[in-house]
């Protein structure tokens, strides 16, 4: 180094900045409006999740997982309990499996609504955000009805769920789906096919498939690059192998495969697939006791396990090591947003500063999960 680069400027975006979706600092080196280098600094929300886990019992870890990805707490619970059940070889009742899938998919819709709404905000569209939050509210109401909480549920337990479904749940849930399904068209009219939105997102921040895989990018971001990979289909867990649904892929409809628009569009399409899954699950929902297989004391056998599940942000993995005691020896969370953010410096290079915000928004990161 030591070379004076007079026309370059270093800018700090964040940590407190609305378009960084949390507490994230981006150190950006710019040449005029063009970004030549970008360095993310994370850790502002680090709460020692993994260290805490070693000091609490296995059931007490579940509320911590809620707080990692607080936009999709159900999916985080789901990943943890599925991993624990695989380690302990517990077979949960059919009803529990169906309830979990319904909740996870509802939460996926809620999470995508937030992602798409705030993405609209990032590129300057305010109204879709309000529309999507209006509908997200209805999902939160369903969760509140089920377990009393609206954001951090602690709903799925090892071997079962904390509450059975409320009376009349099927009718309420179907009612919501019937209400929500036509709303997707409304979003498309309002945001997706808006000319300004297309100009801001299509062809911007292209992530080629091989780079995406090398960076461990997963979930909708990876599918936006055209890679057909969905843990629900490719490494089925719980009862996902029983449902019929498609894996939407980015096709480069308005630009290149893997651009910001494709990542956005995959999320819109995924909401439709989630609706399909929920409808099938409600149709086949069996009766039964949901507390039957909850163990009195959780003491898994000695051993280790790594399992990944599909959270709305991608491959959410848990690495759990048990030494036979009631407390975990080690819990590691492989967070999908962490790997997605690590690819930002690669894909945002060479774009305008305003495009960096559009690219960052399209990755749909949650800082709670990155910093853990």
């Amino acid at each position, binding site marked *: 180094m030591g070379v004076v680069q007079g026309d370059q400027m270093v800018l700090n975006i964040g940590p407190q900045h609305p378009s960084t979706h949390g507490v994230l600092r981006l150190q950006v080196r710019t040449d005029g409006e063009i970004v030549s280098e970008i360095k993310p600094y994370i850790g502002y929300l680090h709460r020692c999740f993994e260290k805490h886990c070693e000091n609490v019992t296995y059931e007490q870890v579940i509320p911590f997982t809620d707080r990692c990805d607080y936009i999709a707490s159900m999916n985080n619970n789901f990943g943890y309990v599925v991993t624990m059940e695989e380690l302990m070889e517990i077979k949960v009742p059919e009803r529990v499996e169906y309830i979990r899938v319904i909740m996870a998919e509802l939460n996926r819709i809620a999470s995508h609504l937030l992602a798409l709404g705030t993405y609209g905000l990032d590129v300057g569209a305010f109204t879709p955000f309000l529309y999507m939050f209006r509908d997200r509210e209805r999902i939160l109401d369903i969760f509140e009805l089920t377990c009393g909480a609206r954001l951090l549920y602690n709903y799925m337990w090892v071997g079962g769920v904390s509450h059975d479904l409320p009376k009349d749940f099927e009718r309420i849930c179907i009612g919501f789906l019937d209400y929500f399904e036509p709303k997707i068209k409304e979003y498309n009219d309002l945001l997706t096919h808006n000319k300004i939105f297309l100009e801001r997102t299509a062809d911007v921040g292209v992530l080629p498939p*091989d780079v995406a895989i090398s960076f*461990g990018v997963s979930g909708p971001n990876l599918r936006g690059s055209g890679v057909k990979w969905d843990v629900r289909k490719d490494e089925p867990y719980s009862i996902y192998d029983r449902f019929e649904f498609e894996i939407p892929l980015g096709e480069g409809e308005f630009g290149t495969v893997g651009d910001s628009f494709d990542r956005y569009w995959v999320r819109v399409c995924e909401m439709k697939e989630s609706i399909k899954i929920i409808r099938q699950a409600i149709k086949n929902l069996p009766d039964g006791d949901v507390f039957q297989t909850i163990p009195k004391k959780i003491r898994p056998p000695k051993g280790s396990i*790594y399992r990944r599940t599909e959270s709305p942000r991608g491959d959410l993995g848990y690495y759990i090591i048990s030494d036979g005691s009631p407390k975990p020896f*080690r819990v590691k969370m492989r967070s999908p947003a962490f790997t997605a953010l690590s690819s930002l410096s690669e894909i945002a290079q060479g774009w305008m500063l305003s495009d960096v915000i559009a690219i960052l928004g399209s990755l749909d990161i949650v800082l709670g999960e990155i910093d853990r």
Partner: protein
Amino acid sequence: MTSKEIKKTLDRQFPGSVIENVDFAERQVELKPDQWLEIATFLKNDPGLSFDQLECVTGIDTGEDGPLQSRYNLHSMEHRHKIEVVISLDRSNPKVASIEQVWRVGDWFERETYDMFGIIYEGHRDLRRILCPEDWEGWPLRKDYETQETYHGIVVSKIKEEEWE
């Protein structure tokens, strides 16, 4: 390929690098640290293996005087098979080759493991702390970790185990 076949392939290609250890499960393979970079490159580029995805890097402290471990979960998008590589490192001098240039995601994963366990990844181009502040003392996820009393004059609260019982 099954994990057994993958192990065999590795043993054939790099004689003496695979350590037989009955403590590990079927899906895991323990390797000696010295040839790790070559093995990693081979795992990624060999057409029969083609592990193009590094799912996760986990650091582990096996406890009192035990070794530190760096574990890598690998997955192949093409062949849909997976393997877990375990590398045990000496506690007093935990050093292993960095695979950051083989799988790009290794960059941040290794920085995280360095941050939490103090494992030095040799050849990493930007090995800094990632989650903790840069001037933090100690390696938080090691079992013998003692929290520092103060950080820039701020008292650091400690986890008291009794409180959680």
